[in-house]
């Protein structure tokens, strides 16, 4: 890594760190905007992007070169395999192998909730998670008694085709083939990270944690069922969130690579719940998780999907400087009023605008957001969701980056 | 980068071996070279280092094959021990078979096989790796083996022989497989580096299939030899049926490397010298022959290592079609074999490793001269030590004497 690349990486890291520490950096830190458009920009299909490691890495490097930011969303492909992460939580060395399903590994595993471009989907579609009910309401007691064992013995065989009979050669072969495939991917990734370092990006990454109720809703019961469970079996649901908390934290530790200080927590059910339900079923174990992650040396970055407005004040129950609140539809200005000096705020760019607006309007739009959000620091500019579709006009993307350059200085 | 000179050298060496296989006279007598534990000793490293550390293994190999050049693609990389019953268990997954079929030191750290011993682990750091065998199957289980050998090897045998897989379907056993995959990926990358280093020295590498005589798989991997010998009398029909059931799996094991470009399959025999001609012809040879014929049918040449004395069964080789492959002899007199097999079978062997250890350079020179005088004419002969492993203590001046004699007397 050249000296100036090293210095650039240090500057970028410092910028993000200052914001998380609620200070004013030299410039507003910007995560960049990416997603499916990265493949389109490189002239490859989403299928190629998801199945061909080399093309994927080349596309990412090309995009990051042309659109530099402080922490590029490098379009981590694939979908989380959270049940597997929990089932194998006693085997930290396996986390990198089993925690994500991308195109080639899904060809080996056959994961029920995964849909990939060029396979089940059109070659230019996005990978999609389509969950179902994998656990019946009668099984809450088993889940509560031993979530790791339950996920391994009961849920994995239902979710992963190759694991439908755990004792069979197919299941054993799948584990070995998975490792061989990940090794192949790893070789391409190492090369990409080397190039990213040369472009001034420090190696890093995020650990991950889930709100216990989201784990149950998204991975096990499916949301409509869980919503009914809240009324029908409130005690069981509550006990289950408490039971899965420890293993979920174990997974976060497994996911914490060297030097990683942040755990990403993508919320899902938050906007489904009334404050009464949120405070009874969702928030207590999420809050405990965030506090425990802090004890484990990790700041949290919570992605509040949808509108979090009804629950915004609960954030103040966390200690000041706990981490970052990343908002989707909640107005970041409104959040700032409440959370300034307590919580770093992330978000601000409506992806819908980037897709459908014009460069001039976007310039104005970014100028306005930065004008309101920058003062006092503690703000990271980011798209409100991670994925720009393939058809996003490149001139709009360019306008966003240029506006950040123009108006982002403190 | 492989230089044009190195490439040319590799082509000459390959052509020399090929001519012998085709029962013709090459330009020189092809020589497989010597190897084994003497390679780490020559490089000044322990056998443990050689068996577990790819970098040291590679350096030692490069030093050896630079100082002692030979014709065949040398056996490089970490040495492995036969584990074919696990190969059979995974025979539907070729990318796994190549890693479980033979188990080396680091792989054994993952799989924890019950019947192998490695230097620096169970053994002294300068000991040789060893397969100690053992009984993994009861006579009452023959029917299961006969009914479905692949299923039987997977479900019944594998949990007994692999500590990592003793509880199939458990997180621990699946984790073992994932770690196996990681280790295999690492070893594949390391092997590619080693082969590249050797190719730069003018060596060539051709993938090769491996399988066993069906009865050897039963005796070495499942029943253990003393038990199998008794089984031949107590349950002759079951043993026969079991050997027959293993023909297809063995052919599959042998031919699965064709896709990767293999043109030859290696079959090391073991029980052959234990059996009377009557037993050999009843229990051993029919299924071995069938395997060889099917491999030949699939377009492969076969190299059979006839361990010990094969004299009593020598004539059965003539039942195979001319040009089927190579008979590699250990104690059987190659001169005697040549008289019988010339024009039909390529003969390999010729020098006793204990001679290399215990004779003088002058005696070795004399012996090789005599051997070549008798064996070279008419072609179809590959010069090789009678077993693969020269021990650490092999005198280097004797090693040198062998290579010099080959150089002196090997020209056609």
């Amino acid at each position, binding site marked *: 890594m050249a000296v100036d690349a090293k210095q650039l990486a240090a500057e970028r890291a410092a910028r993000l760190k200052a914001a998380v520490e609620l200070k004013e950096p030299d410039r507003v830190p910007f995560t960049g905007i990416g*997603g*499916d458009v990265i493949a389109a920009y490189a002239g490859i299909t989403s299928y190629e992007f998801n199945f061909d490691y080399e093309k994927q890495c080349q596309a990412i490097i090309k995009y990051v070169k042309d659109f530099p930011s402080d922490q590029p969303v490098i379009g981590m492909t694939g979908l989380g395999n959270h049940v597997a992460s929990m089932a194998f939580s006693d085997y930290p060395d396996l986390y990198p192998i089993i925690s994500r399903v991308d195109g080639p590994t899904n060809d080996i595993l056959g994961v029920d909730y995964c*849909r990939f471009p060029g396979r*089940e*989907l*059109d070659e*230019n*579609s*996005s990978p*999609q998670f*389509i969950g179902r009910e994998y656990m019946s309401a009668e099984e809450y007691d088993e889940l509560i008694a031993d979530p790791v064992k339950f996920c391994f013995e009961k849920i994995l065989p239902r979710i992963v085709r190759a694991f439908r009979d755990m004792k069979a050669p197919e299941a054993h072969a799948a584990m070995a083939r998975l490792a061989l495939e990940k090794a192949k991917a790893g070789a391409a990734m190492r090369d990409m990270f080397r190039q990213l370092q040369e472009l001034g990006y420090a190696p890093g990454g995020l650990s991950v944690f889930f709100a216990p109720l989201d784990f149950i809703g998204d991975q096990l019961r499916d*949301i*409509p069922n869980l*919503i*009914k469970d*809240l*009324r*029908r079996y409130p005690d069981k649901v509550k006990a289950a969130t408490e039971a899965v908390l420890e293993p979920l934290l174990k997974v976060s530790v497994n996911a914490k690579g060297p030097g990683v200080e942040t755990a990403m927590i993508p919320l899902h*059910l938050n*906007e*489904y*719940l*009334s404050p009464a*339900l949120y405070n009874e079923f969702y928030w207590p174990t999420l809050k405990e998780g965030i506090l425990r992650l802090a004890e484990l040396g990790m700041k949290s970055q919570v992605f509040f999907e*949808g509108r979090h*407005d*009804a629950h915004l004040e609960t954030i103040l129950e966390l200690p000041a400087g706990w981490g970052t609140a990343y908002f989707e*539809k909640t107005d970041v200005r409104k959040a700032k009023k409440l959370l300034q000096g307590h919580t770093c705020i992330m978000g601000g760019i*409506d*992806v*819908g*605008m980037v*897709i*459908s*607006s014009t460069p001039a309007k976007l310039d104005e739009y970014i100028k306005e957001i930065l004008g309101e959000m920058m003062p006092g620091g503690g703000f990271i500019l980011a798209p409100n*969701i991670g*994925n*720009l*579709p*393939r*058809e996003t006009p490149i001139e709009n993307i360019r306008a966003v980056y240029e506006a950040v350059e123009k108006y982002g200085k403190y | 980068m492989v230089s044009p000179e190195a490439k040319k050298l590799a082509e000459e060496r390959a052509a020399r071996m090929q001519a012998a296989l085709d029962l013709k006279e090459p330009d020189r007598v092809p020589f497989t070279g010597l190897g084994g534990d003497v390679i780490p000793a020559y490089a000044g490293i322990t056998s443990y280092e050689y068996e577990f550390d790819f970098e040291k293994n590679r350096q030692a190999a490069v030093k050896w094959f630079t100082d002692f050049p030979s014709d065949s693609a040398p056996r490089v990389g970490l040495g492995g021990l036969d584990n074919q019953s696990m190969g059979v268990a995974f025979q539907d997954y070729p990318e796994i078979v190549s890693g479980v079929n033979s188990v080396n030191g680091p792989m054994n750290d993952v799989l924890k096989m019950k019947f192998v011993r490695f230097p620096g682990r169970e053994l002294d750091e300068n000991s040789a790796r060893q397969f100690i065998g053992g009984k993994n199957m009861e006579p009452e289980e023959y029917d299961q083996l006969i009914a479905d050998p692949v299923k039987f090897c997977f479900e019944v045998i594998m949990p007994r022989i692999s500590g990592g897989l003793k509880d199939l379907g458990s997180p621990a056993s699946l984790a073992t497989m994932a770690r196996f995959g990681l280790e295999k990926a690492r070893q594949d990358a390391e092997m590619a580096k080693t082969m590249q280093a050797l190719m730069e020295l003018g060596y060539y590498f051709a993938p090769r299939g491996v399988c066993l005589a069906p009865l050897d798989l039963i005796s070495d991997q499942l029943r253990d030899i003393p038990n199998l010998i008794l089984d031949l009398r107590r349950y002759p029909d079951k043993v026969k049926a079991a050997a027959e059931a293993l023909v297809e799996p063995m052919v599959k094991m042998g031919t699965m490397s064709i896709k990767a470009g293999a043109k030859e399959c290696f079959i090391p025999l073991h029980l052959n010298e234990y059996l009377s001609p009557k037993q050999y012809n009843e229990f051993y040879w029919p299924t071995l022959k069938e395997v060889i014929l099917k491999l030949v049918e699939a377009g492969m040449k076969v190299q059979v290592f006839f361990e010990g004395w094969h004299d009593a069964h020598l004539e059965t080789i003539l039942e195979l079609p001319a040009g089927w492959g190579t008979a590699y002899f250990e104690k059987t007199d190659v001169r005697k074999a040549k008289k019988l097999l010339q024009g039909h079978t390529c003969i390999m062997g010729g020098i006793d490793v204990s001679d290399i250890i215990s004779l003088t350079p002058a005696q070795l020179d004399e012996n090789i001269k005599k051997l070549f005088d008798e064996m070279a004419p008419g072609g179809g002969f590959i010069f090789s030590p009678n077993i693969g492993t020269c021990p650490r203590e092999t005198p280097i001046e004797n090693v040198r004497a062998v290579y010099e004699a080959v150089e002196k007397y090997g020209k056609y």
Partner: protein
Amino acid sequence: MREELLRSFVDMDEQEAVRIARELVETEGGAVAVLDTCKEAMEEVGRLFEAGEYFLSELIAAGDMFNQIMEFTLPKLQGEEVASLGTMVLGTVQGDVHNIGKDIFKVMAEASGINVIDIGIDVPHEKFVEAIKEHKPELVGMCCLITLGVDSMKRTIEVIKEAGLRDDIKIIIGGGRVSQAVMEHVGADAWADDAARGVRLSKELLGKE
């Protein structure tokens, strides 16, 4: 009894609501009363949602209650004239295979009296055209969850235009990632990122409110 049904339904008391409905449906003209009350209740739930008092979980629970009650009520309504506000063709656009949002909206729309023709997920542009020709709806609803759906909606509307059908229908788009800007971009008539708003606007587009 209608009052009690309405109250327990709106209060999310599932057991009580189902119990009363079962009783009411057996009385003279009870099936019609149950249907009307449940529709009214669903409308009230939607209102509470838009007022920020109820959340998605209540919409889902209400939808489930509505379906449960309809299961034993609808068979008793055979032969009765059930008024319809109009017909809507509804589908998740091509490339997107999510259904949860669409399903929440669907039951609420049906409860409001809209005749919904559900043409599924990952619906090709042409299939929308065919469904419009076949069912002659007043309204077309397009859903997407992921951002990829935005362009897919745009293309679907273009194809509908090319088929000469655009002027016969109103189009509402819905889903987590749509907005005013997206609506203008794709050329729809209304947008909603929640089901209650979606139903309210659908009714407006049908000229019923």
